[in-house]
């Protein structure tokens, strides 16, 4: 026993929570919400320097420490440079941020309900497939086709999201298991459909869909600049709108109040006359809608077609985004922006300094590791127990 623990009997004699679960409000209290992610980011950058040093193994062997320092400096300067300095970097940051934000919201909403949605990938895949179908099978007009295609994507995501919700609410199947399994099923379904005549592109034997028609393609954000290489599209606006919707839902509505209550204390929610089963299913439906929108935005905007792996690792990166953003609307936007910027900046870093783009992956992994280990952060930075004692644990995890 050590006295690192927070006091169980102060200010009351009774333990604050019989299950030892910590609720969201603890996790997102103001000091914690800003300090912890920031410290995690700084820690990751510090450890990243070691990675950079080893990536320049020649200088390391020569003992050219001045040279290494220069590399580190150049690499870290290239990151913001490649993310924000000019139209093209900003464009690339937006392109990377859009799906991360939407899928991040899909995880955040379930965190708020005390659930853990690992199924972002599957929901994106199903949503994207629905969208791409509408996208290539119509020839406009855009004003009808685009809303239809986007709506189809959201609907697909919602359906795929509702399944784990129903399984959890009605049969007690843990959502972590069911969403992972549904990811595999979605992946296989995508592969199957991409080889059917329904989707496959004429003259191709590999799994790739027909191209989305120009009328079904999401308009470019920077069309007014007349620079075709700026591929950012209005999917970003959808993502911002979704974040706004998330804020409105959580903070302003009765349903949001119920979702937060269910997430923080399901027993109390039930006592108060709320319906946990309904809330679980609804949260997953909203999550699926967000993820489906992410899929729609990828196939209708960024990629213009569906391939086997069009969702990439976004569904998993989204978990990191939601964690870093503490599942708040603003936090999730900022976290997605950070990850998007790192991704965009990483390209320039590799080109300009030779430091592999994988550094970005390592940085992201380190950030999450530090976020998930608040006591480690406390030890490293010697901050008070209050600021670090509440880690990102999940009500839905293990319950």
């Amino acid at each position, binding site marked *: 026993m050590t006295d690192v623990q*927070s006091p169980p*009997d102060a200010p009351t004699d009774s333990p604050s929570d019989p299950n030892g679960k910590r609720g969201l409000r603890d996790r997102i209290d103001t000091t914690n919400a800003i300090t912890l992610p920031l410290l995690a980011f700084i820690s990751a950058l510090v450890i990243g320097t070691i990675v950079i040093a080893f990536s320049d193994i020649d200088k390391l062997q020569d003992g050219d420490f001045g040279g290494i320092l220069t590399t580190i400096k150049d690499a870290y300067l290239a990151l913001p440079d490649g993310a924000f300095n000019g139209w093209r970097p900003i464009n690339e940051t937006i392109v990377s941020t859009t799906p991360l934000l939407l899928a991040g919201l899909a995880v955040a909403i379930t965190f708020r309900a005390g659930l853990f949605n690992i199924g972002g990938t599957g929901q994106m895949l199903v949503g994207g497939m629905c969208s791409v179908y509408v996208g290539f099978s119509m020839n406009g007009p855009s004003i009808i086709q685009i809303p239809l295609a986007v709506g189809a994507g959201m609907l697909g995501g919602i359906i795929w999201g509702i399944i784990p919700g129903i399984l959890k609410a009605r049969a007690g199947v843990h959502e972590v298991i069911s969403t992972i399994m549904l990811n595999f099923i979605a992946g296989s379904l995508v592969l199957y459909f991409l080889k059917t005549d329904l989707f496959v592109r004429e003259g191709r034997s590999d799994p790739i869909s027909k191209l989305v028609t120009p009328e079904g393609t999401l308009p470019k954000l920077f069309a007014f600049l007349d620079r075709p290489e700026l591929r950012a599209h209005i999917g970003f606006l959808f993502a911002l709108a979704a974040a706004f919707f998330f804020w409105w839902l959580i903070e302003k509505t009765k349903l949001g109040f119920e979702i937060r209550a269910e997430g923080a*204390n399901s027993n109390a929610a039930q006592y108060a006359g709320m319906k946990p089963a309904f809330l679980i299913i609804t949260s997953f439906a909203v999550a699926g809608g967000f993820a489906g929108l992410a899929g729609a935005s990828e196939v209708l905007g960024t990629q213009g077609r569906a391939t086997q792996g069009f969702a990439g690792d976004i569904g998993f990166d989204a978990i990191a985004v939601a964690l870093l953003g503490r599942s708040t609307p603003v936090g999730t936007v900022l976290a997605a922006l950070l990850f998007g910027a790192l991704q965009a900046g990483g390209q320039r870093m590799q080109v300009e300094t030779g430091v592999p783009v994988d550094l970005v992956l390592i940085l992201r992994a380190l950030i999450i590791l530090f976020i998930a280990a608040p006591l480690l952060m406390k030890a490293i930075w010697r901050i008070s127990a209050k600021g670090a004692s509440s880690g990102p644990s999940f009500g839905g995890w293990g319950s």
Partner: protein
Amino acid sequence: MELELRGITKRFPGVVANDNVNLTIRSGEVLALVGENGAGKSTLMNILYGLYHADEGDIYIDGTPVKFETSGDAIAAGIGMVHQHFMLVPVFTVAENVVLGIEPTRGLSLDRAKAAAEVERISDEYSLGLEPDALIENLPVGIQQRVEISKVLLRDAEIVVFDEPTAVLTPQEIDDFFRIVEALKASGRGIVFITHKLTEALRVADRISVLRRGQTVGEADPSEIDEVGLAELMVGRPVQLVVDKSPAEPGASTLQVNDLHVVDASGRTLVDHTTFDVRAGEIVGIAGVQGNGQTELVEAITGLREILSGTVSVDGIDLTDASPRDVHLAAVAHVPEDRQRSGLVSEFSVAENLVLTRYHSDEFSSGVTMNWSRVRENARELVEQYDVRTPSIDTSAGTLSGGNQQKVIVARELSRDLRLVIASQPTRGVDVGSIEYIHAQVVAARDEGAAVMVVSTELDEVMALADRVIVLYRGRVVADLDRDATNHNEVGLYMAGALDQNEQASA
């Protein structure tokens, strides 16, 4: 042996749990440590037991400073603790539990005969009446507590600390417990008795130390102080210990529970064909030892638990298969027994908690959106009206003291027109000052014409509040008594299962 705590200070972030506390414990005497919840009693004892480390101050044994890094050090120094929540392995026998950790062995195996002999020796010496081969899970709570005591004795404790030992006992078990305490004292051991029940402290202690907000505010001689004086010392102001109420004027039967039967998932009977009613304008107290179906009875009435058979109605409205929301809308208030588990969302603000069961009404929402300004207005009114001590209405409820958390619930549940009030353990873990207030609110609800059902495992509370007392034993109503025609002793016998009105009637 003389154990002394000198100048103990323990700080937790944002709160000083112990502030320069001095305490002396001598062999052969009983020291009662009384104080409200949050006064720092448990923190102090955890420091003594090596579970926490004091920021300042020292512990002395017979004048020599000692340092307890772990509870193992404290045990080695002759300090034993009987926790409020027992640390027993239910599927082990008494003997196995007692020797757990210091097992006598023969070769590689447990020497059961020796373990049993040790338990019998201790049991005989202090008249504990323990059977070494009985399984813990089959024993009543009072006996389980004696197993805990014998664990401490086997480890040669000179000082025995009891943390709220009577909370889970029936009145008769409490009597037995005090006889054991006397025996321990006679054998020369020093006893620390942590409690918030003043009558018990006065009854058993040789000295009483009072803690208030982390400080020792006084030491009293039980022969020179009475309950009122002690309460005043504990709370820091004069308190009203007797519930001030006029005779009930019962009206029509409001809550009608008819042949209610509730079972758990495995089919075990929890509430056994129970029939009773509560009339408007009266307080019915449901007495019973913890775990005799009170929890399930309340859950069944309030829609939180499935009813196998029987009916529940309020003013003629059938609520047998109603949802918690339906019950709420039928003007029934429910103060749940465990505020941390279900009464509050600790992470939510006071304002949010004050509408937890009422957010859906037109008063606090319109269409799909919440009316937050009305929620905040409501919070300001109720915090003021119900004297909730909180830094602001935006403070998260989990940071309030137990008493103030309970006031938040009481304010939320009682601040509307009601037909029926169901209050379960309304003052558990609540300070004396808040108890007084909450009891007054319950009586006020009755006087406004609501039917009131108070469920409490504290017999004192039932006797203080109730106009009529119903005793539950193993899920059955074994007594329905007029408060003024009964007494603690009689109710205690019904609680223990020694008496049963049903049998008397048929006999």
